[in-house]
């Protein structure tokens, strides 16, 4: 199975709160691939990128590095689309 990964940093000032978490899950749901979002550091957590609850548990503040991993036939496009959300700051400041 094809795998892709991308390291990103949360760059919107409010962090990964509920609205961006839901936006992420909406986009993740458009792909066949299984999506994981991994936070390292002192409180490591791996969230299922298709679960709003788990994405909110990441509690990723501005400046938090995260790794997006996808596994499936569309993993390349999935990772690119999801990383783009972070680059666009989820439409926030």
């Amino acid at each position, binding site marked *: 199975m094809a795998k892709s990964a991308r390291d990103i940093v949360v760059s919107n000032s*409010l*962090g*990964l*709160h509920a*609205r961006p978490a839901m936006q992420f899950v909406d986009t993740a749901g458009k792909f066949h691939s299984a999506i994981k979002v991994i936070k390292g550091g002192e409180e490591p957590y791996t969230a299922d990128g298709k679960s*709003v609850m788990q994405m909110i*548990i990441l509690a990723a*503040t501005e400046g938090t590095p995260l790794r997006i991993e996808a596994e499936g036939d569309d993993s390349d496009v999935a990772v690119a689309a999801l990383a783009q959300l972070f680059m666009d700051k989820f439409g926030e400041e």
Partner: protein
Amino acid sequence: MKLHDFIVTEAIVPELQATNRDGALRELVESLAAAAALPEVAVDEVVAALIKREQNGSTGFGKGVAVPHVKHPKIKQMAGTMGRSVAGIDFAALDHQPVFSVFLLLSPENQPQQHLQAMNILFSSLQEDMFRRFLRQSSTRETIIEVLDDADRVK
């Protein structure tokens, strides 16, 4: 951070009288104001902000729980409470199921980190099947507080 750091236990509503979303939001905000966790004069504005937030996207994240929340300039200190509905409330939830437990979280505007941390604590507990089940079975404020205490203890 623990649940008890932001859940105002005196404001917990073991049986919501409201049968719809907007009524439940008002009931919980009024309960926080009655417990002096929010100025009375801010109630209407905060309720309106919460309703607007729900209209932009439901906080009914599934599994019978909703977590309405808002950051607002009238809120000086983070405060949360919980309300339980026996009949279930239509929150336009993501899984289209009724909501039996409503956790309300009010945050000041300028502390996004604290807000994310509180959401982290709340959702870590809400992920647990047992936590949700026990809450649904708890018909008094005292038993709800016990469930929250237990959740804090295992962290």
